[in-house]
């Protein structure tokens, strides 16, 4: 049963919604367990599904790339639930008002996960568009979740308006492609000849992808939405939303417009260069850690799309591996950020001063995550970046590798700012934070271990590479 993982996620979402109605206040934790169990089972189901197969006459297809994407989505969803549970059940020092019912929150979250999973399996425009919206619309609600916080509502407003704009652009682009091919199937567009209408459609679709993936200049919503959204949702936006953007880009650039991959390399390289540079530069002047993470995510988007450069079989595996490393590192870092904000309500980078003395283990984990994001060997972030840089170099974009190297330096400076606060500055005078809850401790421990191991043990990269490379060479034009 190919669709089993998606079905499990959707059924879990429904079950959580219903259970929330009947559970008493004392048993309210049950919805969390249900969500976690559902996602764990879904991850198992992803493992159980084969890496190729199709349903509904080829409209729903699982292949190796989609398989990995689904796994990553479920994993990041799982950890997002772990990050959210303290906040939702009011077990934090710094209570958040107007948080609403946990059951609804989990339901909405699970729906976005199912949308993302459908997205990578879609092979026609109907499923592609509907699943994209399923992955996006619930995020508007999640961003605006804190009803009694002006920033949250404002974030929801900005997200909804820019999101709807992007949605309209995507739809218009899809409509034009449909007009050119006369078919609703994505594969039909691969043989299209160039024409102004096609380029118009491609530009509109690229803009839509740019919104999802926070490419410059479509990135402007990110900082405000990241700042306003509840902290776990910020974490989710920076990993899962990025993954969706990549999956969407993969669907459009390889599947739909696969014949043009070579010709658009220059455009992708330009986007990569501008996005990385702008993201890193603006991150320098940020003081709020959530905004900072938004620009960190933006600059990483520039690194990710280097995987789409050129005629390389190993571009997409490298991109997938970096996505995995990025998920592990970012979520490990966010576990620390969520904990700190839960316990103290502090959100600026300056507030992290002296953390290494008051909570040495958490500071260590955050430092490792920051180093991985900055790309310091032997952590996974370095290995992933290394592969992506070599993809760019292999495609002949040496100037891009140069820019990326300069950007790595700026990124290192940015991330070291936080490390400096944690390790060098005197302890925060308002006192230390309470120790982390078990859920955040486990999340931090697991993800930190993962981000170290991914870099040292080549098994994961080999697994991704081995399973996707054969598939890609079949699809790519030669």
């Amino acid at each position, binding site marked *: 049963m190919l669709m089993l993982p998606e079905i499990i996620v959707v059924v879990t979402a429904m079950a959580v919604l219903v259970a929330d109605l009947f559970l008493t206040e004392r048993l309210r934790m049950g919805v969390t367990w249900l969500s976690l169990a559902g996602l764990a089972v879904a991850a198992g189901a992803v493992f159980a599904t084969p890496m190729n197969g199709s349903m509904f006459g080829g409209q729903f297809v699982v292949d190796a790339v989609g398989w990995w994407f689904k796994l990553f989505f479920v994993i990041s969803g799982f950890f997002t639930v772990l990050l959210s549970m303290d906040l939702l059940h009011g077990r934090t020092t710094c209570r958040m008002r107007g948080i609403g019912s946990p059951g609804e929150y989990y339901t909405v979250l699970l729906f976005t996960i199912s949308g993302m999973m459908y997205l990578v399996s879609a092979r026609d425009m109907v499923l592609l568009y509907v699943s994209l919206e399923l992955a996006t619309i619930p995020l508007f609600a999640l961003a605006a979740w804190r009803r009694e916080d002006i920033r949250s509502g404002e974030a929801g407003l900005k997200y909804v308006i820019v999101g709807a704009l992007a949605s309209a652009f995507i739809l218009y682009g899809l409509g034009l492609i449909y007009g050119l091919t006369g078919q609703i199937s994505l594969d039909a567009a691969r043989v299209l000849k160039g024409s*102004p209408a096609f380029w118009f459609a491609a530009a509109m679709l690229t803009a839509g992808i740019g919104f999802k993936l926070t490419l410059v200049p479509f990135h402007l919503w990110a900082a405000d939405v990241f700042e306003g959204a509840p902290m776990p949702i910020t974490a989710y936006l920076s990993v899962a939303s990025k993954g969706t953007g990549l999956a969407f880009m993969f669907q459009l650039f390889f599947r739909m417009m696969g014949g043009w991959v070579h010709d658009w390399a220059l455009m992708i390289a330009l986007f990569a260069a501008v996005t990385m540079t702008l993201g890193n530069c603006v991150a320098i002047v940020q003081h709020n850690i959530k905004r900072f993470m938004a620009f960190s995510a933006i600059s990483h988007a520039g690194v990710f799309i280097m995987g789409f450069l050129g005629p390389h079989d190993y571009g997409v595996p490298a991109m997938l591996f970096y996505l995995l490393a990025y998920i592990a590192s970012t979520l490990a870092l966010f576990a620390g950020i969520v904990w700190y904000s839960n316990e103290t309500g502090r959100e600026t980078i300056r507030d992290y001063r002296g953390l290494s003395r008051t909570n040495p283990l958490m500071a260590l984990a955050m430092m490792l995550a920051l180093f991985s994001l900055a790309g310091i060997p032997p952590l996974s972030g370095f290995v992933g970046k290394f592969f992506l840089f070599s993809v760019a170099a292999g495609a002949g974009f040496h100037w891009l590798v140069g820019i990326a190297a300069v950007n790595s330096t700026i990124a290192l400076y940015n991330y070291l700012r936080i490390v400096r606060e944690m390790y060098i500055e005197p302890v925060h005078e308002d006192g230390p934070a309470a120790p982390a809850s078990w859920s955040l401790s486990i999340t931090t421990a697991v993800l930190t271990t993962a981000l170290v191991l991914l870099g040292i043990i080549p098994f994961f990269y080999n697994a991704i590479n081995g399973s996707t490379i054969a598939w890609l060479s079949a699809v790519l034009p030669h």
Partner: protein
Amino acid sequence: MTTEIDIQHLGFAMRHAWLVPAFPLVSFVLVALFIRPLSQRFSAVVATLAVFSSWVVACAIACEYYRLCPPGGEHPVLVPWAFEWLRYQPGFTVNVGVIVDPISVLLMLVVTTVSTLVHIYSSGYMKGDPGYGRFFAYLNLFTFSMLGLVAAPNIVQMYVFWELVGVSSFLLIGFYYQKPSAVSASKKAFIVTRFADLGFLIGVLTLGYFAFNLFGATAPAVSARTAAHCTMPLQPMDFLYLTSPEFLAKFGALAAGSTGITLLTVAMVLVFMGAAGKSAMFPLHIWLPDAMEGPTPVSALIHAATMVVAGVYLVARMFPAFAVSGAALLVVAYVGAFTSLFAAVIGTTQDDIKRVLAFSTLSQLGYMMLALGVATMDSPLGYTASMFHLFTHACFKALLFLGAGSVIHAVHSNEIWDMGGLRKKMPITHITFLIATLAISGFWPLSGFFSKDEILASALANGHTFIFGLALFVAGLTAFYMFRIYLVTFWGDFRTDKAHHAHEAPPLMWIPLVILAVLSVVAGYVPMGKFVSIGVEHAEHHGINFAIAIPATIAALLGTGTALLLYTGSGSRADAIARSLGGVHTLIKQKFYIDEVYLFITHRLIFNLVSRPIAWFDRAVVDGSMNASAWATRASGYLFSWMQTGQVQSYSAWFACGAMLVLLVLWAALI
């Protein structure tokens, strides 16, 4: 006699040889992160158990290896466990694995044994120290690094762990980081060995470059049988590859320019530079005496028994390559011989008990090096002798250091003139120290006698008469300075109140002493020639060669006699001799002013002539441009942040403009 070994079907210990370094690593992480904050006491227990587990596995590996390749037969190199670590390109991969052959088995046993005993000893010695848990974490880190180094099947892994032992040595020397002298000693050790490693690194890169380029990805450079002993295909950086006759024949034929020196010699001398740094050979020896600032168990473990022999191990590991380049081997022999003499001479005048032992270690390491230097592939007795001496030396030198530690623990001073008369107060320490002194001086029937005998025999057998004579003289000197500190420390009257109030160490400390003493006695009876050999020719040492044993014993007796003559009674005779030697004595006592020479070269010459101009350039030009670019980056950050107006409609406008821009780019690019 050849043995057929099926590499895929080995016993448990062989297949899981990675367990040997894994135990201390896991324990290091656990102790450093989790256990140390909870319980200091428990940290010691966990750390010790981890190293002990490694010892058990190492023993199992040794048993299995010698069951597969019985003593006296051929001893092939096995790589029973490995995985691919870095793949640069097809045919050029660096693996991480465990190599199993006589010398790695020997070293694993030595490292785990001494490390276990030192762990036990330290749990008594370090009691009450605020850094108790940290100390055990460091010890575990060191043990892990050392075992990884010993197990390295390729030179890259060796290099990585080589640096790791350097780091852990740095951490342990500077353990008392409040003491400025300890900090500067740790820095000195790190910088000097790091400087030597520069040569090593260049050597590694040279070897790797030619190994890959002479044969490329396809050509099989080693015999099928050798390859069949490895779980992974051989790679250019593997020791088996680098020491294979096929590679050496081809590489050895390349000359470095028109100098007449082969590239192989250049590469091997560079590799030896790293080995000389780690094993503190002259003139890179200056860090070792200062390294005695670390806690005494550290000196016993790292700076006597294990890390400092890494250099010897490296030369032994690369021995076929050294042998093909005869010149490099001669360098090894003469550097070793000179160091052994030089250090022994200095050792006769030092007053700090640990420093005397440090110079003694230098001298004995020189012995091992010279033994390797005089060996050849056809007559590999020196190779066996060197490994034999490494083994026995580890036992008695660790014992000497631990004994010294016990004395220092009791007297709270390192000066031998603060001690005296301790034989009554500390009987166990005294007896074990005496055994070790006799062993290192080379008295029959203790272990030192046999290994020294073999070294002397190998020097003579291969026609190095000069080195033989020199080694004989050093044997006498060794006996002299060892008996000097022994007599001053344990005989005579109590010279200070502290010595008067000294008492025997607790059982946790004396039990390792006794174990090591037993080992120092019996280690000489291991028929090393049957266990450790290289090539097909067998290094059979036939019993005791009286032509060598008698002069050696006479030399030892002479040294002992002189010490007895000078240092029993009032000690005025020694002072008289020192006075009559005048300047020469001062010169020796100041260690030939080598440190001062280094200081002059670095501080006066290099700092003034090279560093200051570079520093000016760095500050003015490099930093200036860096600051300018940093300023520009920050300014662009502020500039671009004005896009973030907070107005959603301006965001939407940017979005629409961006889409149009994409259209223009596509149109321009594709039309």
